[in-house]
């Protein structure tokens, strides 16, 4: 499995190539660094694994800039988003048990417990 830096670099380069092929502005390292308010040299070191992943805030900004799922990037960085941490801390034993129970379940089984937006009468 890719490390955080490898994954980030591969996704950025793929999106950069896609955008350029469509005649749109690319997503160079400098451009992405500017979008997320990081120094290009620092982002470059993160991509090459010479620096650990940045803060949660920067990871979420990177996810937004690249159109990636922030939870996936945070997981690759070995982090859990603060809203999930808060949710787990509220009922830690229950959520620990739930995750262990579900960890090997297929996606469709897990999706059965995802909360749907309730439709009413209108």
């Amino acid at each position, binding site marked *: 499995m890719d490390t955080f830096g490898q994954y980030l670099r591969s996704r950025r380069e793929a999106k950069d190539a*896609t955008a350029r092929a469509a005649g749109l502005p690319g997503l160079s390292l400098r451009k992405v660094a500017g979008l997320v308010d990081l120094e290009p040299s620092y982002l470059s070191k993160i991509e090459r694994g010479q620096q650990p992943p940045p803060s949660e805030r920067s990871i979420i900004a990177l996810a937004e800039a690249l159109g990636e799922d922030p939870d996936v990037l945070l997981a690759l960085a070995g982090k859990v988003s603060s809203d999930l941490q808060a949710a787990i801390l509220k009922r830690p034993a229950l959520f620990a048990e739930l995750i262990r129970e579900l960890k090997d379940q297929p996606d469709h089984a897990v999706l059965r417990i995802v909360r749907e*937006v309730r439709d009413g009468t209108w």
Partner: protein
Amino acid sequence: MLTMRHDQLSFSFPDVHPSAQVSIDFQRTLRIPDDDRSYPLPPGLGRFPLRHVDDFAANLPPEWLLRGGVMMPMWQAEAMWLSFGAGFDTEREASYPCAVKIAAGKRSAVTGKAWQTGLGRKPQDYVVVPTQPWLDGFCVKKGFIRQFVAMPLGQGYSVEEQLDGEAEFGGLQIEVFPMKRVAFERRFPIVPKRVRARGWDGVLSSPMACTSPLPPCSDAAMGLAAGGKMRQEISRDPYKADEWDTDHGVRCFVHLCNSAAWQDITGHAPPTTPPNARSYANAGLPWFEYYSDQPAVGGGELLKDIRSVAKIGKTKGETPLPENGAVVPQVVIGLAPRRGDEVRVGEM
């Protein structure tokens, strides 16, 4: 099924096709001047927060709970636009088309007609995603919309009140229909691996504060009114009527809650008011023009004579839109049809 994640609605149709998905989020933006000049597209300033109405049942009027769905905060006279994303099938290198109906106060934003079940073709009362990347307002004329602007329900400004004579529903209503699986697979055959474009991938990856019921909650309901004029085309449906799977519609009521009441209802602060159009334009920040290669639908017959907020305000002797002076956008960025994850956020 309809789920909500990161302040975004996700409509998915796993029974139809794994890639049959549409994401919709509601973008905060500038209110363009309501002065009958036409303006380019304003930027997106981030998503409005979305919450399940069921989570705040004790503080909401019963009709909100009856209708279900989600709610979001908007300040009086605040504008917004809808951003659409489509699920992407990597084997076919194609986004999965879906038809999206949008109404405000149960009046179609495309035609002005009252909400009907299914898809209307003549005139077309829906947009096709991913062909249509955004919707900023009511389609008043071919190539022009009037911006969605939130106004308190019951004061006579909303499009619903103009067309129906009463303020019954407010909010936004959305229904999504996927393309039939057989039509999708016929139109978009599997692309052999060796000719796949490198890096071509999906558009989608894809506490209660109040202890007592709040009488002002009913007053918190907002409806969408017609604001300033903007250049935006509603693309004509490029597909055939029988290619849409109208047996699998999923719908959602999006209640608009006055931001002034949001904190009392949810315990959380709403987003601040956005910058005004003049200071944004004067700072040289970008506006956008979108060039589509699809033919556009005409304006809604019922919407062409709709009165804007400023016009109604003048009749009533009110000034509903502060800071409504004309502005001159200095930087306008042209955008081609969306590929990949491009969004119109600009470099701010």
